[in-house]
């Protein structure tokens, strides 16, 4: 990667995505933050990516809550089977 100070939006959005999964180098972090500081669109996109991640995690929690409200439980036969598998007390 060329060592330039100013990233393009394309490069910045790629780096922002990478930064969600690995530690960026000091240079990468600095060039990214510099671009975001100057670019309102990329600032928006970074926030939206973050929101997407939060939403993804939240949607699983919502699914669990929905299952609970529907009364979805571990079937009793399953519970009995597990207890039977446990060494006898």
């Amino acid at each position, binding site marked *: 990667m060329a060592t330039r100070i100013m990233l*393009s*939006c*394309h*490069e910045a*959005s*790629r780096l922002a*995505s*990478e930064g*969600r*999964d*690995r530690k960026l180098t000091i240079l990468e972090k600095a060039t990214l933050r510099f671009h975001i500081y100057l670019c309102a*669109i*990329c600032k*928006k*996109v970074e*926030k*939206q*990516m973050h*929101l*997407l*991640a*939060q*939403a*993804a*995690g*939240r*949607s*699983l929690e*919502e*699914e*669990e809550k929905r*299952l*609970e409200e529907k009364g*979805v*439980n*571990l*079937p009793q036969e*399953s*519970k009995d*089977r*597990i*207890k039977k*598998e*446990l*060494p*006898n*007390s």
Partner: protein
Amino acid sequence: MLYSHRFRRELLAVQTDVSKWVDRYGDILYRYALARVNDTDVAQDLVQDTFMAALKAIDNFAGKAQEKTWLIGILKHKIIDYYRKKSSQMEKSTESAPDVDAFFDEKGRWAIPVNSWDGDPDRVLSNRQFFATLHECMDQLPKNQFLVFKFREMMTFSIEELCNILNLTATNVSVLLYRARQALRKCIDSNWFERT
């Protein structure tokens, strides 16, 4: 093997605890698994495996306050193992999706509209329509992009775990995640947003 009286009492106490745990945490673990594997039989098996593993590892268990967290941690690993075994059955699809490069001009500047979403993230995250749109957009993703997004962002698996499950390098995974995130963001942007 001969046990001392005290050892046997402690052993019984531990076994009783795990039996109680089935009643106390079985339902929670089951729903956690079901939300992630979408298969009632598999979910039941994973919960059973979790309790069996918990019994074996009981010596590592630190303290009462972390029971649920500890059990869910074991279950999460069982889920990862499940997907890793399943991966050989997953189709290795070829990507045929809108290329992210098309979102930018020849100088690398944004070439598609990027709208403002509701300024308040909490309001967005409480909006059912947003989640419906998210799921519709996820369904439109190519298979591999869908999977990396699901495993990474929904289930918070590590990159290494993704590599193991999908049999890809970290670089492959990184590219797929980038494409998935870009595609989803654009899809949601096009289909749902509230002007601030």
